């Protein structure tokens, strides 16, 4: 099959190992001074794109991220893993707070068209908002077929054969390129960037853009009213008899 150009979306999120803390004013979570890294599902997407290049199914891998200046670190990681070049759509700190999947989908679809991408790949969801919307919205905007929750990708006539993880088990579908894919956990195990590759990545092209360059306005569609910790778990009580249990349930208004 013809060599494909793959556009991979990466999001900079709080590292999965960090213990999340809610801000005292309950407006959100603490992000200052907290370790950030590439969304794990996006790492899987980048890894898959690079493997396609290694198998000569893809000719070029372009990494994309929309976020504050620090998102460039995420793109350098993607290039250290093997992406050829990247595009950073920079937003300021305020805009970064209100970005939603719809904005990313609009950007991705514009860039996909500009770059003549054959495959747009993203992680199935980001671990901070768990939206699971970007791939689907992008496919709708581009009017391209979509294959989400991909756990296996194989070449097929005119497109790809995708095995998807669904509630009932595994579903295998065939999609024509150009197409949008979202990666699930078991698609692959991403490689770690090695020092020589990190060095090389510093020299790879990183284009700096703004949302306006693609005709996208970052406008808030929702307002977060409050973010809270779940209620603290209270100590349990050991009861001696069933009668005691029934009394306690009655007293508590549960029955």
């Amino acid at each position, binding site marked *: 099959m013809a060599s494909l150009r793959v556009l991979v979306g990466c999001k900079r999120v709080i590292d999965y190992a960090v213990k999340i803390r809610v801000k005292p004013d309950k407006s959100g979570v603490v992000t200052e001074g907290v370790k950030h890294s590439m969304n794990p599902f996006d790492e899987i997407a980048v890894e898959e794109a690079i493997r396609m290049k290694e198998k000569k199914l893809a000719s070029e891998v372009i990494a994309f991220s929309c976020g504050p200046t620090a998102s460039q*670190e995420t793109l350098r*990681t993607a290039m250290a893993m093997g992406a050829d070049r990247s595009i950073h759509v920079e937003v300021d700190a305020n805009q970064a707070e209100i970005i939603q999947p719809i904005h990313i989908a609009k950007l991705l679809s514009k860039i996909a068209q500009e770059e003549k991408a054959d495959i747009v790949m993203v992680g199935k969801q980001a671990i901070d908002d768990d939206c699971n919307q970007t791939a689907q919205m992008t496919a709708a905007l581009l009017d391209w077929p979509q294959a989400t929750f991909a756990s296996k990708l194989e070449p097929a006539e005119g497109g790809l054969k995708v095995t998807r993880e669904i509630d009932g088990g595994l579903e295998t579908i065939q999609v024509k390129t150009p197409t949008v894919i979202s990666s699930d956990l078991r698609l692959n195990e991403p490689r770690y960037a*090695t020092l*020589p590759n*990190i060095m090389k990545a510093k020299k790879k092209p990183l284009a700096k853009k703004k949302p306006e360059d693609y005709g996208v306005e970052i406008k808030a569609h929702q307002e977060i009213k409050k973010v809270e910790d779940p209620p603290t778990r209270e100590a349990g009580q050991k009861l001696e008899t069933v009668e005691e249990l029934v009394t306690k349930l009655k007293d508590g208004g549960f029955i």
Partner: protein
Amino acid sequence: MFSKRFAVQLQSCVRQFCTTKCLTANAQAFEYPSVSSKLVKELQGIVGQSNVSTAEAVREQHGHDESYHKSSPPELVVFAENVEHVSHVAKLCNNNNIPLIPFGTGTGLEGGINAIKGGVCLDLNKMNNILAVNQEDFDCTVEAGVSRQTLNSYLRDTGLVFPIDPGADASLCGMCATSASGTNAVRYGTMRENVLNLEVVLPDGRVFDTAGKGRRTKKTSAGYNLTNLFVGSEGTLGIITKATLRLYGIPECTASAVCSFPSVKNAVDTTVNILQCGIQMARIEFLDEVAIDAFNKYSKYDMKVAPSLFMEFTGNEGTLAKQVDLVSEIVNMNEGSDFKWAEEAEEKNRLWKARHDIVYACMALQPGSKPYSTDVCVPISRLPDVIVRSKELIDAAGIIGFTLGHVGDGNFHNLFLINDDMPDQKAKAIKLSKQIAKIAQELDGTCTGEHGIGLGKKELLLREIGEEGLEIMKQVKSTFDPNNIMNPGKVFV
């Protein structure tokens, strides 16, 4: 009550005036005072009520590790959140002659944390900050509660790794305390070679940095090497609260392979040949046919059931290919066959995970059993001799025994299954282990390459170091821990 107090006072007098020999003899016979409710309150005052536990389940869990030694629960478990807590707790225990045992992940293999003399177990897991990663200098500093996998996950974007891999997700400071090693030692060395500095709390509460505060150089000639005194001290000299560790670049390319041999000697000879050629392997692991069988069953592989070598090659594309060629030649020379390769990340990880799971795989052959493993290490040229002889002994004894290990370092394990329902098997296993350790010692080797002395190898240490050597070690111990509260009953007879 009165006589106990009298005994304590007499003990302190005895301590002040006796020689070291007398001291330790008394300490052995000495029954430490119990933790009083007054002491519990004082400890709660230091760390807070929620950080002191007398719950049976918590104590039981803190009284055993992954070895076959039954749980000896401490009287109390105290959780420290910072080095000030550790210092005050240590001082309090020291002033009251209460045994103190530092606790990391409880993944040791020698009963090192079992509280056989009661006392306080000091759990350090809440001190879990990664304090610094100096990418350009290839070093990092971590607190006692940081585990190996946590650190490597944190480092994954930097291209750096802490390669010492004992299998378990052990705490890094615990690995310092036991001078841990692992499958990668043939290339990266053991903890001994990779600890640049330690923050240690002594029983009297003093906190100090073994190489000086903030020092993190690759080499130093400044004063005594206190860092390496504490590496391997198994909690008997002080509590390690921070470690500065050497980092390495993730190798550019790695490839793993398994190959089989017609006999144990062929496999081990291959290893010796590879090392004597100066080929820089990342890992060379040996598994005998008994271990491979368990391995296949547990991890669902279909390796040829024969003595095998698991190998990992690293380098860049050019050097990797050359290494592979050279090793293939040596393997063929020694009648090796059935080379199986793993190149993709998933396959390699699966292979090495299965290798690390070998202990569980072996135990699965006799569910309900616990593992008991020898840990002998000899100069490489003696390896074929000691492995073949150990296998002969096992066959003669007629019990299940697996032979596997880091042959690249001259270190291997005979793994036995211990089942309290089968005392005959247990007795044979223990007897065999001692015999094998003695053979290793006769061949210029050591009874423990990486697990430590802990509870079960105290007599072997005496045999290995000799009476005078042991006396000198005890003198060092009494300098740091005159009241013998630090992990009593371990290491020394």
